[in-house]
């Protein structure tokens, strides 16, 4: 799975909100994510993990340090990264297909080529019968799948996800986790996922980065050596899964 190429690198990044003397959200955060690697950032709420993701996504400025995406030093949102937020960012006046095409449209990419990709994308997302449906006609899980699809449509190298399943019920969340892994394997993306669910981070990731409470900093970098493809049952029944769970829970101070 690993390739020697680095997809994302963050070096000694510090971020303060509210000017000098404000709240330090991140302090000397450094990490690297290899090409096609699946990395989770795990931490308590308010630890700055979303801030870190937004910096990589080019949505926030930072004071100190270096950030690069696919070898390029970051200047605002990168074409190589697609972002999925906790709230599915769909436009209520656009149906599924038009929401999927939003990014393509905004970047004025070649539209016929994108449209050719649609049937396959709808199938990947499991939304074949919903192409003409509007967001209010979809369930929360389906909306989030459309949001993921929109990010994938422009074929970015990197997928940044900010608690994409945080607002969903446990059952839907588990199912979407499996689908996310399938999509990740099929599309060969680099994924950085921010989550506060320990089990989710273990189930999905190659590596889990644990962040401390504010000021956020990476305190642990744990490699998850569980066989792939992962299976909701077999993976969770693997004794190693239980060990990771205990280990991470101890680090997080919930055990």
């Amino acid at each position: 799975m690993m390739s020697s190429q680095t997809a994302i690198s963050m070096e000694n990044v510090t971020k303060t909100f509210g000017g000098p003397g404000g709240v330090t959200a991140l302090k000397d955060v450094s990490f690297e994510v290899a090409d096609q690697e699946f990395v989770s950032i795990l931490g308590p709420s308010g630890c700055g993990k979303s801030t870190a993701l937004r910096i990589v996504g080019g949505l926030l400025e930072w004071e100190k340090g270096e950030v690069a995406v696919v070898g390029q030093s970051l200047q605002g949102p990168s074409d190589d990264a697609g972002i999925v937020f906790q709230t599915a960012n769909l436009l209520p006046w656009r149906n599924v297909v038009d929401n999927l095409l939003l990014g393509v449209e905004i970047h004025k990419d070649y539209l016929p080529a994108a449209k050719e990709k649609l049937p396959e994308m709808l199938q990947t997302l499991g939304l074949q019968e919903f192409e003409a449906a509007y967001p209010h006609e979809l369930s929360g899980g389906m909306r989030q799948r459309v949001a993921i699809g929109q990010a994938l449509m422009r074929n970015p190298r990197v997928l940044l996800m900010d608690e994409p399943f945080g607002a969903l019920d446990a059952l839907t969340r588990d199912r979407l986790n499996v689908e996310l892994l399938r999509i990740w394997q099929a599309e060969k993306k680099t994924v950085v996922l921010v989550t506060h669910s320990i089990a989710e981070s273990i189930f999905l990731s190659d590596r889990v980065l644990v962040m401390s409470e504010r000021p956020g900093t990476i305190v642990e970098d744990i490699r998850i050596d569980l066989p792939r493809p992962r299976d909701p049952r077999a993976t969770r029944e693997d004794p190693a899964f239980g060990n990771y769970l205990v280990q991470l829970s101890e680090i997080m101070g919930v055990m």
Partner: protein
Amino acid sequence: MNRDTLQTALFFVLLGLAWEYSVKFFEVRSYILPPLSDIFVEMWDSRALLWQHTLITLNEVLIGFLLAVVLGVAIAAAIFFLPIAKRTLYPTVIGLQSVPKIGLAPIIIVWFGYGVLSKVVMAFLFAFFPIVIATLGGLSTTPEHLIEHFQALRASRWTTFWKLRVPSALPNFVDGCKVAMPMAVIGAIVGEFVGSNDGLGNLILLATGSSNSSLTFASLFAVTGLSLFLFFLIELLGRFVWWRSR
């Protein structure tokens, strides 16, 4: 007809009957309050006259309203996007709104004459403010997470405006139009009261002056009908903005 509409219809029929017979029972003189039937007869007899004046008022209202939409939206957008407009235009608009517009009517007649133009200006003045406020509200209620999403997609300000801000402001704008349209009718009627040769407001004055209360009420019904028609026209057009209720 379902049960709900039946109840509504029955209520108004009863109200009409109460009007008709209480006027007769208490022997109210007809120049004070004519029986409802007299008003209907008058409406039928004077239908050509009423129609003619309705069209004149309709014309004034529509032009004034459309002007209010065009200028109102432009000024709301300017206030929203240009800090200098927020510091200058916005207080001006608020100030103008606080001037009682009925008090302005005489001077508007002096400035714009007895004809259509002064009524258009009055309709405009009445309709303008609700449209500015509603549009301004609509523009500022664009969800923050969608704005961030457009930022992540590297959308230009122009794209964000057309593809995000405008559609998300439309529901508020439609609501503003619903308030503004009956206001425009009031504006035109006030203008006709203060100085005019025709229009439904003029007809109301003429009828009242000659103690023809049936015609006064017939004209009032025509104004009410006009106002309701225009309101439902907006309502109908507003259905194109179907995500309003989502």
